[in-house]
């Protein structure tokens, strides 16, 4: 929005008006408060007993496939949702914003799926492939990754989506499918407003995670697949198999 004199007229009167417009909240009586705490404690004690049972079950499992069965049965006890966020700015800087997810939890794949539903892929197959890759990467060595921020997960998934769209764009460019090329280009050129990107990397400059996006945008604008390949490959933004049109192979 263009700055105007009017824009900066935020005053205490505005703050007062906003606060006065807050919906009234019925009182919570002291008795209700005490009763609720008792229910909270009782609920947690109940869950603790179930958790102990879950540990015993898992200890007896040998086949990895059975872990999924146990997880499904106890999903409300051990969840990838930790409820924890970054503890300070440095934590955000190092680990990304958002909730710290636990990849070891049996519902991690479902949580990952839920948290990335707004990220647009050209096909269900591309999305599934990207999420499978991230799932495998996060859970391959369970002792290695014990916490993963939702912001980082969403950012990486956005990278895979852009890689997939770049592949569609390059293929359409090669075959002269103007409509598909334009559609893919529009998605890529609009990506800088995706919350999955801007929440973690609003600047897209210097050494930031998505500093390569402007290069990709320029490649799209100039119909230059080689430049698109350079932008994506140089920053390891494509997982194997997502961009064969750009001849992007293994990530590492």
């Amino acid at each position, binding site marked *: 929005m263009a700055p105007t004199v009017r824009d900066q*007229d935020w005053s205490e009167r505005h703050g007062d008006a906003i606060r006065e417009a807050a919906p009234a909240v019925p009182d919570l009586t002291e008795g209700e408060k005490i009763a*609720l*705490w008792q229910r909270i404690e009782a*609920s947690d004690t109940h869950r603790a007993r179930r958790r102990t049972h879950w540990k015993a079950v898992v200890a007896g499992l040998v086949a990895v496939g059975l872990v999924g069965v146990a997880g499904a049965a106890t999903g409300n006890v051990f969840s990838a949702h930790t409820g924890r966020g970054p503890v300070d700015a440095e934590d955000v800087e190092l680990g990304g914003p958002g909730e710290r997810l636990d990849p070891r939890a049996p519902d991690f794949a479902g949580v990952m799926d839920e948290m990335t539903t707004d990220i647009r892929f050209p096909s269900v197959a591309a999305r599934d492939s990207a999420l499978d890759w991230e799932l495998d990467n996060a859970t391959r060595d369970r002792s290695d990754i014990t916490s993963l921020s939702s912001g980082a997960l969403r950012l990486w998934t956005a990278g895979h989506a852009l890689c997939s769209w770049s592949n569609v764009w390059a293929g359409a460019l090669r075959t002269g499918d103007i409509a598909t090329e334009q559609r893919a280009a529009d998605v890529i050129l609009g990506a800088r407003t995706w919350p999955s990107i801007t929440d973690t990397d609003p600047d897209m400059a210097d050494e930031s995670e998505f500093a390569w996006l402007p290069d990709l945008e320029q490649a799209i604008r100039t119909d230059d697949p080689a430049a698109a390949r350079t932008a994506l490959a140089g920053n390891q933004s494509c997982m194997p198999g997502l961009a064969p049109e750009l001849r992007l192979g293994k990530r590492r």
Partner: protein
Amino acid sequence: MPASSRVDVEELYRRHAAELRGYLYRRAGQAGADLLGDVFVVALQRVDDLPEPDVRRAWLFGTARRLLLAADRENRRRHQAERERARFGETVADTSVAGGSGQAGAVQAALASLREPDRELIRLTEWERLSITEAAVVLGLRPGTARVRLHRARRTLAAHPALADLSPVRSPSRAEVGSQRSSLSRPPQG
């Protein structure tokens, strides 16, 4: 930091239950308020790895927000599973309690003109009286990003026709205009 105990969570409950309930109620009515217990069940489950004391209030609000979002997702899934699933770029439905008529209605209209994260930033800082840093934790934003977004959201609100009457009436001199424009030409960076 020594591990927290159930006593710590109980103390958090005593201190923050009322304001958290207010937050939940203002966003989703009684159904939201009913999530208050779940917030503290999560806290008890995570008692061994609660954040530092100075960010626990924000952590509780963040947990409450995630529960609201999860409940909203569940509701939408129950009612519109296939349709919602296929739609890209959707935003979280705003189920907050209406603020009434008159000026409250005007404020609600102005708030509704903001994007959800910006609207929530305004509400967290004004209604819940969270600091910008705390609101940033709740929304999973960098504090600097939250500052810039709050600044822009306030500018947008102040310029909204529904709130026009609240702006100071004055006729700035040409020199004032130049000064004000230069100070707004670059929003504060975090």
